[in-house]
């Protein structure tokens, strides 16, 4: 259980240490902090988007211990001591992830709002299954809604990224 202090309003503030994109962050949070809000507001990692707030749209998808989850439905206090990867963590040393490169090459994002979530779903897929079938790609991003309905290019880009590995 995370340690806590009680603030002057009588509300408990918990001390959590969470590894995000390889960096350890230690912060005081309230029990009602949602991981998506923690990332965006406490860590200024606004690549993670929010929309439906109920697990339908996938805009807030991040990897929690390597698995895609909706960060708007995760309590930050439950993630103490665990590992999170967000879209900001995809590039390394100024070089984009192969998925990001293929998204650009295929002009997959249109308005771009769903792209961070789809990138993280795809990242989770390729980590478990480096050479997915088209059906597996479609299933992996079925929890990500694209309001521009640009799914075909996303599927092609993810398959292309898998082939290029």
């Amino acid at each position, binding site marked *: *259980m*995370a340690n806590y202090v009680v603030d002057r309003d009588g*509300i*408990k503030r*918990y001390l959590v240490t969470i590894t995000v994109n390889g960096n350890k962050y230690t912060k005081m949070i*309230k*029990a*009602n902090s*949602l991981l998506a*809000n923690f990332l965006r507001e406490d860590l200024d990692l606004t690549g993670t988007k*929010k929309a439906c*707030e*109920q*697990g*339908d749209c*996938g805009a807030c*998808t991040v990897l*929690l211990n390597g*698995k*895609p*989850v*909706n960060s*708007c*439905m*995760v*309590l930050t*206090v*439950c993630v103490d001591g665990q590992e999170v990867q967000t879209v900001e963590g995809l590039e390394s040393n100024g070089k984009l992830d192969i998925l990001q490169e293929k998204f650009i090459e295929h002009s997959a994002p249109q308005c771009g709002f769903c792209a961070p979530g789809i990138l993280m*779903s795809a990242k*989770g897929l390729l980590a478990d299954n480096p050479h997915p079938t088209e059906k597996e790609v479609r*299933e*992996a991003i*079925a*929890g990500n809604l694209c309001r521009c309905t640009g799914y075909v290019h996303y599927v092609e880009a993810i398959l292309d990224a898998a082939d290029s590995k």
Partner: protein
Amino acid sequence: MYLPDFEYFSPDSVEEACQLLSKYGSKAKAIAGGTDVLVKMKSDLLAPEVLIGLGQLSPLKKIEYVPGKGVVIGSGVTHNEVRDSKVIQEKYMSVSQAAHHMANNQVRNRGTIGGNISNAVPSADMPPILISLGATATIVGTKGERTLPLEDVFAGPNVTVLEQDEIITEFVIPDGNFTGSTYMKFGLRASGALAVVGVAAAVQVEDGVIKDARIVLGAVSPTPVRAKKAESFLKDKQASEELFAEAGVIASGECKPISDIRASAEYRKDMVRVFTKRALDAAVNKGHV
């Protein structure tokens, strides 16, 4: 969106969780993956002052086969862990496949079997297949432990027979003589859709004769229900497509669906007929449970 303030506890044992639930009574709510509880809190359907986290309780995380007992699935196991479990795939591929039908990948990585069942949504995907295979639920509270057939856990839409201080700790699928089983879901899209109709069938077939059959209907009554008339109709009869079709007609008379945004009651009844026939056909002919 933000959640209102609440106090959070993460107990170290099931006993401590039950004591906390007992202490805080109706102010408290148990939370595992959070994919139901947090959404309900966001829409003001729930306003607990205290949340009791179960996610860190490792005794609830097991999946194992215990000879003489059966396949034991801890309530804190996620849907994707059920789907990917070698133990479950080897013993009950149909259970692994049913877990894959639930919501979408992100929700399956977080939402637990125990949470899904404790929420008692009539359209839930796991209850029909587990009930068809005769699964039981182990329930622990401050006064001790009890075991119920899973079908008796549900009391109505979103209501179970669990007392305020009780949680489900595990589900057990006992060793049985079933030769085939399946869960068929009909939703309005392949992913992220609640079942309009969900039908599970488990059968024991010997030399083409149905010795035993269990049919469980989801999303078409206040709780998952067994189509008992259709089950006894099938007993000791030669398996055939005509027989499955007749059983489908009987089963469609055994549900009490509602009309809602997804489908009318009349349509659901007719889909019970169709999906019972298809589920029986699959359970009999695929040759494994």
